[in-house]
C-alpha cells in the first residue's frame, strides 16, 4: 500500500475517481442546505423594519458576492501552484474555477441591481463597490478568453496565471471599497470583529445559503475539472480505458 500524500490526488486519474465519489454528496448538501436556507429565509425570518421584504434578496446576493471573490482567489492560487510546481491538475482546476466565478460575479451584480432599484431607486450606480465588482467580472472573462485563445495549453496556463495573480489585487479593493470610499452600498453586515448587525434567523438563513453555494461551486468546478482532464489526457491509458468502459 502506498501512503496517502498531499500529491496523491494531483494525478488526474485519481482526481477523477475522487470527484466521482464526492460529487453526489456535494449535490445532496447543496440541495438540502438550499431548501433549509430558503425555508428559514422566507418563512421564519421576519420582515425587515426599513427595507420591507426586498431585503430577502440578501440570501442569494451575499453568498454570490462572497463566492465571486473567494473563487477568484482560489483560481489565482491554483494557477500559481500550477505555474510554480508544474502541477497539471492545479492548472486545470484554475481553468475550471473561472466560469463558475464569472457566473457568481454576474449573479452578485444582477441580484444587487434588483435590490438596488427598490432601496436606492436605481439599477446601477458607478460607485466603488459596484464598479470594482464589475471589474472582477471582466477579469474572469479576460482570463477565460486568454487561456482559451492560446493553443499550447502549458503556455496558456502560464499566461492565465500571470493575469489571475495581477488581477488578485482587485479582490481586497472590492472587499474594503465600502470602507475606503463614500458609497451607496451598505457596509459589511457581518464581520469577525463585531456582532452581526442582523436578526439571528436572517443570519442563519444567509449562512445556510452560503454553505449551499459553496457545495454547488465545489461540485460544478470538480465536474468541469474532470472534463478538462479528459480532454488534456485523452492519449493516456486511464482516459482510454474510461472512455471504452463508458461508451459501451
Amino acid at each position: 500500500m502506498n501512503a496517502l500524500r498531499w500529491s496523491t490526488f494531483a494525478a488526474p486519474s485519481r482526481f477523477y475517481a475522487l470527484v466521482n465519489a464526492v460529487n453526489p454528496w456535494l449535490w445532496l448538501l447543496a440541495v438540502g442546505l438550499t431548501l433549509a436556507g430558503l425555508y428559514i429565509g422566507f418563512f421564519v425570518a421576519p420582515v425587515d423594519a426599513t427595507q420591507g421584504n426586498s431585503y430577502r434578496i440578501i440570501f442569494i446576493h451575499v453568498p454570490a458576492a462572497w463566492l465571486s471573490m473567494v473563487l477568484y482567489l482560489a483560481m489565482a492560487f491554483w494557477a500559481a501552484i500550477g505555474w510554480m510546481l508544474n502541477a497539471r491538475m492545479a492548472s486545470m482546476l484554475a481553468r475550471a474555477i473561472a466560469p463558475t466565478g464569472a457566473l457568481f460575479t454576474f449573479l452578485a451584480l444582477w441580484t444587487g441591481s434588483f435590490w438596488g432599484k427598490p432601496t436606492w431607486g436605481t439599477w446601477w450606480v458607478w460607485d466603488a463597490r459596484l464598479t470594482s465588482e464589475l471589474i472582477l467580472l471582466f477579469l474572469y472573462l479576460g482570463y477565460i478568453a486568454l487561456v482559451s485563445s492560446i493553443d499550447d495549453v502549458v503556455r496558456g496556463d502560464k499566461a492565465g496565471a500571470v493575469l489571475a495573480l495581477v488581477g488578485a489585487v482587485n479582490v481586497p479593493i472590492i472587499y474594503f471599497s465600502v470602507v475606503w470610499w463614500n458609497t451607496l452600498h451598505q457596509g459589511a453586515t457581518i464581520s469577525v470583529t463585531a456582532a452581526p448587525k442582523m436578526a439571528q434567523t436572517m443570519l442563519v438563513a444567509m449562512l445556510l445559503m452560503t454553505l449551499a453555494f459553496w457545495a454547488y461551486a465545489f461540485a460544478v468546478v470538480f465536474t468541469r475539472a474532470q472534463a478538462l482532464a479528459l480532454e488534456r489526457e485523452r492519449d493516456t491509458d486511464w482516459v482510454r480505458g474510461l472512455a471504452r468502459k463508458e461508451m459501451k
Partner: protein
Amino acid sequence: MNWGSPAEFFAMGGYGLYVWGAYAVCLAAMLVEPWLTRRHRRDALSAASLVGDDS
C-alpha cells in the same frame, strides 16, 4: 409564519418583481451551469473514445 396566503407570498409586500426577478435568474443560472458542465464532460468522454479507434 410571515404570509397569510400564497398571493401575499408572491407579492412580497410589493417587492415581488425585485425579489423574484433576482431569484429566478439565480435559479436558472444554477440549473443551466451544471447541465452544461455535465454535457462538457460527456462530450470529452466520447471524444476520447474516438481517439482510441484510429490509433
